[in-house]
């Protein structure tokens, strides 16, 4: 019999806010254990939750990127369960009235385009982390991550293969990074995925027994886990190797197998009820519009625009992968009006620096307007390209640098003083008579050696074409 796979995803995404959802502690990744904590986020009595408005902004932005309906009145609820990493023994989440419902995400696979329906997006707080010390046989708890804001994006069971799941996750990541909702870094746990999977005979409209794999945090592991689960389910149905039960399973990527989690860890009644300490959040038109207007265009729209500006498919694709590159590109282009030049500077020079610093693209902190000014200076021949790169590096270290002023202060302005250039040329020719002779005897390369020496002496502050012309003139006259 032929089977089809039915998959629904629950994706948890940590939001890119400065502070936590209900207190002012830092929500940044890292830090020493229990560095980012206060009485509120480690469960001490007496602190009351005050909703971080930026969390709602990002929740809305995520919903808008996924074509969701935004609930204009949204509430928070409490979900109770005991675990040492949950300091209040309840998690504040959205159960009765989530911020976004009914959206779609379009994916593209080898089989073409497909719309995946989004059931809902809700906001909630993250839990802490337990650290087990086998040496002393103790467990320690780190509350840095408690109350870091999350959204959970719940899809309908519209996915039918590992390939589609990967396409979904990649598209989701790209859109949410673009809208600056989250960095979506699976390796840091800022994007985690629960996979709900069942199989049924092809064409059947009855859903099979569903299993859930929790907290998957690498795309390749998800692919392996799905493939394993599908074959386990088929095996169970065809060969009766086991009886399928609805349960939560843990994927062990090293063993390449999934295991049923003990019932105790998963069963339980969460006893949801509205949090009386958080007033319903009402999103008025002004708030709604301010979020809507700040949203970026979709990456493919930007790409098409860049191609229209004359960029190659490749360059346009590169730039439109990251919202930071897009923003920088657009601001620089506004100033210098040469798409090609800006693309070159960004894709080669800037990315070189980013790589050297071991940053990710999204950490690019360059002011696009300043970049445009720098490119203009180089294009107008006022600053040499090599010196331009030096200025660029300085701009990475200090984003307040004005390239024009910086060039002047550091002697990077090109001089067109012919007599000065000629005196340098004469000096160089006197020092390197051999190259002069070689050039006169037809060795073209000798000219480059002389050119290089002159340029170095002039500290790069010379229009290369002018220098070459004067150099040839001087040699010919000599």
């Amino acid at each position, binding site marked *: 019999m032929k089977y089809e796979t039915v998959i629904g995803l629950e994706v948890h995404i940590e939001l890119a806010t400065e502070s936590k959802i209900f207190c002012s502690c830092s929500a940044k990744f890292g830090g020493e254990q229990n560095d980012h904590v206060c*009485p509120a986020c*480690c*469960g*001490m*009595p*007496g*602190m*009351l*939750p*005050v*909703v971080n408005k930026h969390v709602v902004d990002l929740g809305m932005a995520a919903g808008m990127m996924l074509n969701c309906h935004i609930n204009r009145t949204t509430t928070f609820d*409490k979900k*109770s369960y*005991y675990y*040492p990493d949950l*300091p*209040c*023994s*309840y998690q504040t989440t959205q159960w009765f009235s989530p911020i976004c419902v009914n959206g779609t995400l379009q994916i593209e696979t080898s089989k073409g385009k497909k719309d995946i329906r989004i059931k809902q997006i809700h906001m909630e707080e993250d839990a802490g982390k337990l650290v087990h010390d086998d040496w002393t046989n103790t467990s320690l*708890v780190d509350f840095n991550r408690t109350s870091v804001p999350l959204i959970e994006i719940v899809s309908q069971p519209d996915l039918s293969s590992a390939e589609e799941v990967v396409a979904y996750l990649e598209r989701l990541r790209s859109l949410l990074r673009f809208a600056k909702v989250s960095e979506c870094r699976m390796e840091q746990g800022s994007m985690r995925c629960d996979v709900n999977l069942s199989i049924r005979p092809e064409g059947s409209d009855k859903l099979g027994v569903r299993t859930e794999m929790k907290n998957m945090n690498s795309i390749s592991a998800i692919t392996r886990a799905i493939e394993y689960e599908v074959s386990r389910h088929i095996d169970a149905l065809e060969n009766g190797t086991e009886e399928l039960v609805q349960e939560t399973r843990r994927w062990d990527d090293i063993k390449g197998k999934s295991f049923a989690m003990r019932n105790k860890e998963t069963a339980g*009644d969460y*006893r*949801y*009820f509205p949090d*009386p*300490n*958080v*007033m319903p959040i009402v999103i008025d038109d002004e708030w709604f519009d301010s979020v809507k207007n700040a949203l970026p265009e979709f990456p493919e729209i930007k790409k098409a625009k860049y191609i229209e500006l004359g960029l190659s498919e490749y360059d346009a694709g590169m730039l439109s992968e990251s919202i930071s590159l897009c923003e920088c590109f657009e601001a620089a282009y506004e100033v210098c009006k040469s798409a090609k030049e800006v693309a070159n500077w960004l894709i080669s020079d800037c990315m070189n620096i980013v790589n050297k610093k071991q940053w990710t693209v999204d950490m690019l902190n360059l002011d696009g307007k300043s970049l445009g000014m720098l490119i203009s200076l180089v294009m107008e021949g006022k600053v040499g390209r090599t010196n331009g790169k030096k200025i660029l590096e300085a701009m990475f270290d200090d984003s307040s640098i004005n390239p024009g002023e910086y060039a002047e202060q550091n002697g990077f302005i090109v001089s067109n003083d012919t007599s000065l250039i000629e005196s340098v040329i004469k000096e160089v020719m006197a020092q390197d008579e051999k190259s002069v002779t070689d050039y006169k005897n037809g060795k073209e390369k000798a000219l480059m050696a002389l050119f290089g020496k002159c340029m170095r002496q002039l500290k790069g502050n010379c229009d290369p074409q002018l220098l070459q012309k004067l150099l040839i003139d001087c040699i010919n006259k000599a």
Partner: protein
Amino acid sequence: MKLFTAETEVKTQKKVVLDDMILTKDLPTCAGSKMLDGYMSLFDAQVVTKLSEAQIGICGKANVGEFAIDLLGETSYYGACTNDGKLVSASAEIVKTGKADAAIVLDVNGAPRRAAAQSDLVYIKPTYGTVSRYGTIPAACSGETVGVISTTANQCKEILGIIAGHDDKDGTSHADTVCQKIKTSSEKITKIALISAFNVDSDTAAKIDNFKTVIEKSGVSCHTVEGEKLLCARVAWNILMSAELCNNVSRYDGIKYGHRASEYTTIGELYTNSRTEAFGDLLKTAILYGSDTLSTENYMKVYDKALRIRRVVAEYFDELFKEYDAVLLPGCSKSFYTEKDIETNKYISFEENACTAPASITGLPAVVAGGVQIVGKAFSDAGLLDLAEIYEKGGK
């Protein structure tokens, strides 16, 4: 008998006592529970900050029933307080004996109102959201309010004026312009509905009659209204209070602070043993009841219904306020309780709260004076205290 769970010397002219549900940085805050015995908060409650700013000294912490859900403090880990065989509330007794000018309390289940009614003190439970709950130990957040017990209405007014106001740290706190409304009386109370649906003993009935006679002298008219609908507030409040309490005390798990059992092998045993050892019977009952009302099976049948009843009670008050300026009802059904009352009926505080539940569940302001309780429109706090003052002056 332990009136104070912590005491300290103060040199200020005016001094107040805080009940032990209000967190202080310098004194332990234990909520009357073994679970929090010796607990030191890292921060002061907002009301504490405001009192200090106003140069009012805090002379100590008053013993309180475990998480303030009982009758008069009898479930405290530090023991019940009695006077002449009668149960008394520690905060009321401290004020009555002049050890403090006022007591600042967290009114969770009406204990301060019962205490004030029985010891002839004046008490105000202000409109919900006008005094910050930041730094109060959470029990039943949707209805609990910081209140003031004192000897005179004027004194209550003065202290309330200091502690009321908007606080960014409390998400349920009203805007400051709204909070300020409770400090000035806009309309005089002239017409009162006297609710007759509550059963009371003869002494309490006499207090109500006396109050009525006195205020009528100043031209306030009292009209008897049955007010049966207010009786259902009790059941609904018991559900909401237990559910929220169950959730709020779930943080005391023996992991981070508070009592931890010495014997356990698994994490489950750590939780169970710590909580079994440190929580008292009444609290345990409320936890179990609350947990049950929130279960998937009972949520719609019980919890959601309680939320609807809350609305019914609020709407009934609205209806009364169309015709009357305030509603008079008893603060409790008896003029005193003894330890025997509790021995005979362990859950007496879930029955005797019938008189206090209507104002708790709706967040309306309630003033106790002359042994009776007057519930007013939202933000009419100053008007209610004016009425208490009229009573104090014998209707003149």
